């Protein structure tokens, strides 16, 4: 978070992240080129580069899509999520290089507009195997461009986080287009079952992880129905909450993070104001709730970021009764100070 505008706030973690990212991509390209030269000695430079950059983009997209659900299952993957947007931009750039090579090689030599040629060079036929695959790649690249262009916090702040997240969910559509691009493109020509197995394994991994994560998320969204006469809802037992961490419960359809720290209990919205990250999966650091995604911080009693920062999240009224935590499901306005519940000893 920042009180003054800086286009990119570099820190050691981001530099390390990008170093590993670029190094990994470069290593992949070199290894891919070396293996291709050994296995296919007559391959042309254009085709080699097309395949290297295309497969690098496709593989990187798989990794990017796996980061989210992996972080749901294990916090050790959170460092991968920290700067995921740089990986997304890299994925777009790799795809763009692949597309430029394809257009220059196959579509730029004729008297038809190269972009138009992508759509008219392979007309629809009655054969499934002959389905035009290049338009799928074109539209996937278009979506990746849109996501890369709006990945900066400028757009996050101006569109607001829910709209930004909704926009970036179109990554699923881009992924579907790319799977179709590969299935009806290279896999129609390469008959080796290794390529089919690799593509299938990638798809099963991505979709499997997301389905498992979705199943787990449904459990978290089950509402609490034990409601007292004063409107408070029995949320959980104090003993269920680890020290300096939170338990997430669903009240009135939204998730609430209930934190335990220094003999007190406070409840805030589970949604970080930055990228809507899960505050309840973070911890108390320096007396502040710290988002696990990018380190945005909030005071547990007020839901407000410590000065001079200005972010605020809604708070919830808390009551303690016989070792159990009761929360009023009606949220207070963001930044409203609430009395923390005192743990009875």
């Amino acid at each position, binding site marked *: 978070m920042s009180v003054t505008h800086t286009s990119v706030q570099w820190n050691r973690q981001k530099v390390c992240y990008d170093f590993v990212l670029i190094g990994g991509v470069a290593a992949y390209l070199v290894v891919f080129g070396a293996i291709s030269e050994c296995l296919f000695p007559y391959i042309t430079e254009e085709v080699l580069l097309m395949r290297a950059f295309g497969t690098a983009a496709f593989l990187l997209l798989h990794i990017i899509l796996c980061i989210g659900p992996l972080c749901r299952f294990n916090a050790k993957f959170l460092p991968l999520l920290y700067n995921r947007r740089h990986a997304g931009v890299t994925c777009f750039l790799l795809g763009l290089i692949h597309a430029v090579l394809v257009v220059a090689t196959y579509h730029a030599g004729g*008297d038809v507009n190269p972009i138009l040629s992508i759509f008219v060079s392979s007309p629809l036929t009655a*054969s499934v195997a002959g389905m035009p695959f290049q338009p799928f790649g074109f539209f996937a690249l278009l979506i990746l461009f849109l996501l890369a262009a709006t990945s900066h916090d400028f757009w996050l702040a101006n569109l607001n*986080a829910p709209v930004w997240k909704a926009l970036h969910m179109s990554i*699923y559509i881009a992924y*579907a287009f790319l799977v179709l691009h590969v299935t009806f493109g290279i896999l129609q020509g390469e008959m080796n079952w290794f390529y089919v197995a690799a593509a299938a394994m990638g798809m099963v991994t991505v979709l499997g992880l997301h389905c498992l994560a979705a199943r787990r998320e449904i459990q978290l969204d089950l509402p609490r129905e034990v409601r007292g006469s004063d409107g408070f809802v029995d949320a959980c037992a104090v003993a269920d909450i680890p020290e300096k961490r939170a338990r997430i419960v669903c009240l009135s359809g939204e998730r609430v993070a209930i934190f335990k720290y220094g003999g007190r209990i406070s409840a805030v919205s589970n949604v970080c104001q930055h990228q809507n990250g899960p505050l309840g999966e973070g911890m108390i650091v320096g007396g502040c709730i710290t988002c696990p995604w990018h380190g945005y911080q909030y005071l547990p009693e007020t839901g407000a970021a410590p000065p001079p920062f200005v972010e605020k999240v809604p708070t919830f009224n808390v009551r303690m009764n016989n070792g159990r935590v009761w929360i009023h499901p009606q949220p207070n306005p963001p930044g409203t100070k609430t009395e923390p519940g005192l743990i009875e000893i």
Partner: protein
Amino acid sequence: MIRSLRQSDRQMVIALGILLPGAFAVGIVARKPAPLVSEFPAALAAAPHLFENIEWRRVDLFKNSPIKVSLLCEHRGAGAFAFAFSAAEDFAQPDLLVYWISGTSNFTNALPENAQLLGILIHFPTWSCPSKPPPRPVCCCYTASPTTKSWMCPSQSAPMLQPRNSLGNS
């Protein structure tokens, strides 16, 4: 605040989890295997010839193009014939296809039905003439570009150039 987003996310994941594997499976099942060499016509599987003699070599057969063409034969003036193509290393023309047409034809906007594909003009190979050259055979390079196409007649004495515009414009 973002419950609807989470629900949309789950719905998209479930939809993809059902539709995408289905589309993938259909695409894989519909694949057509590449033909084996043993399935090729006998003319294409014939033993390669050794062409020792250069009957002629021309650099001007293809208008506005640096392609050089040589007519080769097994023995001087006899035996099987073949074409050899060459050009400067920086010559780049995508999808340049070479066809053999037995006999002269009235060319229209499409290739004649009897046009026989020799191959793609890449790495400048040598192709055998599919049959004994008739009096006026035609070898044609075909591409989407209007700058490289023309026709030539490789007779054994002197090649005759029939300059034309592009196939698409003729």
